[in-house]
């Protein structure tokens, strides 16, 4: 039995979780800082960094208690090295280094996107490769081709705003409370998604990249026009039409990636995966195409420690250890973290 403690402090959640043998979730504790940030209307990094300092230690203890384990039972400690807010990341990295050093166990640096990918693995530890995973959150919108453990390639990414960021900015423009995504989704429920036809940015025919900046501008222009004409803003219709535009592009590009790479499993991860409209649209598309759809439960979609522990297990099997000199890398790129030539796949194909 190999129990791995995973720590994630990349943004506004202090999170720790314990996963055994890369698939059995034993605990997953998140101390959300949303209440702290609501006053600022978003994540304020300095606040995030300070709050991690006080909230992470009790989260670590809770994670052990809920798993029924003690520090001595841990086989390794995995931590998100990047990307994220530097001040927030380094609290987790420092904690992980201290634990690994004191317990004399391996330290495993994990790329945040790889963590999101393995939230899908935790939800379905026998999913069949190749898989295509859409990771959509406040900081990311990426399409990942997942051919095997540690064989992951970014095949599409946003060229401007992340999907979650577009949700947050439009929500704020419409005067909705933080966090903007869930508030906007709630409002959209009462609106007509066909009331306004907002642009879908398909970009070049071949690309799997995304762009949400133009959509954001279109929403602002539309609202300005309505206001100039003296009409009151049909907020729910604007929200529903905006959401429909985001969801359509996300689903269509993900489907394209599935066709291009002949994927057998379609996976969805990241905070935006909590969006019901996106889940339903992807589910409908997957069942029409005969794809296996994996959507982790909500507590695994947001940033969490269990996903880092699960990803850490396969990195551990690949011998990817860090040391006491490990540094947080706020702009860590997946292709630098997992170079294409890295022979990780031959180390572990079974996942057991």
């Amino acid at each position: 039995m190999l129990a791995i403690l995973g720590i994630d402090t990349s943004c506004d959640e202090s999170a720790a979780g314990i996963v055994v043998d890369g698939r059995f979730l034993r605990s997953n504790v998140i101390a959300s800082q949303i209440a702290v940030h609501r006053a600022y209307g978003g994540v304020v990094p300095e606040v995030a960094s300070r709050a991690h300092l006080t909230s992470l230690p009790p989260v670590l203890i809770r994670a052990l208690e809920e798993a029924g384990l003690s520090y001595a039972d841990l086989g390794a400690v995995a931590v998100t090295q990047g990307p994220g807010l530097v001040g927030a990341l380094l609290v987790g990295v420092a904690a992980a280094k201290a634990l690994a050093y004191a317990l004399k166990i391996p330290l495993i640096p994990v790329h945040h996107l790889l963590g999101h990918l393995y939230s899908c693995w935790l939800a379905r530890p026998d999913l069949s490769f190749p898989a295509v995973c859409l990771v959509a959150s406040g900081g990311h919108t990426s399409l990942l081709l997942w051919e095997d453990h540690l064989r992951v390639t970014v095949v599409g990414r946003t060229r401007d705003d992340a999907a979650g960021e577009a949700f947050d900015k439009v929500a704020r423009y419409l005067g909705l409370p933080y966090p903007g995504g869930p508030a906007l989704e709630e409002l959209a429920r009462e609106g007509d998604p066909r009331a306004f036809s907002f642009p879908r940015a398909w970009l070049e025919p071949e690309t799997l990249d995304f762009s949400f900046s133009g959509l954001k501008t279109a929403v602002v222009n539309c609202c300005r026009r309505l206001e100039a004409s003296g009409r009151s803003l049909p907020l729910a219709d604007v929200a529903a039409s905006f959401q429909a535009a985001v969801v359509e592009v996300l689903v269509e590009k993900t489907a394209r990636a599935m066709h291009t790479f002949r994927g057998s499993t379609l996976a969805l991860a990241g905070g935006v995966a909590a969006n019901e409209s996106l889940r339903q649209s992807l589910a409908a598309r997957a069942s029409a195409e005969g794809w296996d759809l994996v959507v982790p439960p909500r507590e695994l979609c947001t940033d969490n420690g269990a996903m880092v522990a699960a990803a850490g297990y396969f990195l551990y099997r690949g011998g990817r250890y860090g040391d006491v000199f490990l540094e947080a890398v706020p702009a860590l790129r997946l292709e630098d973290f997992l170079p294409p030539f890295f022979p990780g796949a031959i180390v572990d194909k079974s996942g057991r």
Partner: protein
Amino acid sequence: MWQVVVDSAAATVELGRSLGELLANGDIILLSGGLGSGKTTLTQGIAVGLGVGEPVTSPSFTLVHEYAGRLPLYHLDLYRLDPEAVWELGLVEYFGRGVVVVEWPERLGALLPREHLWVDLQPGAEENERLVWWRAKGSRHRRLLKELRCRCASWALKRQVGP
């Protein structure tokens, strides 16, 4: 003070590229304007002009993005901050290194660098039209703005207003 009118996102990128090609080490570009006014689009153009090979994405969530071009480019977004947070995060230390582009410079308050090029993007009469106002502080940024105006005169930009 100088004003230029661009009629599309592509023209905004082109304007940014012209500026990017002229930038020197230590230049500071401050971009103000509302949501969706084209601040990040202009920065994408600046990056192209600096020879940055990768796409410039919004730093709203992550605060600072760094790019390696002909000169290092630091792209800051202070949307969610106040001057105290800017100070505590040490963000003013970027000023004077490479090229620094700051979105939402209003958040700098008293930390505003003395020499800079201030760019204000306002919505125009048409939907995709933007009025871009330029104001330079200090001799090097005044020289930079003058060079940019010469440049833009030659590529028959849109309408230009100003003395």
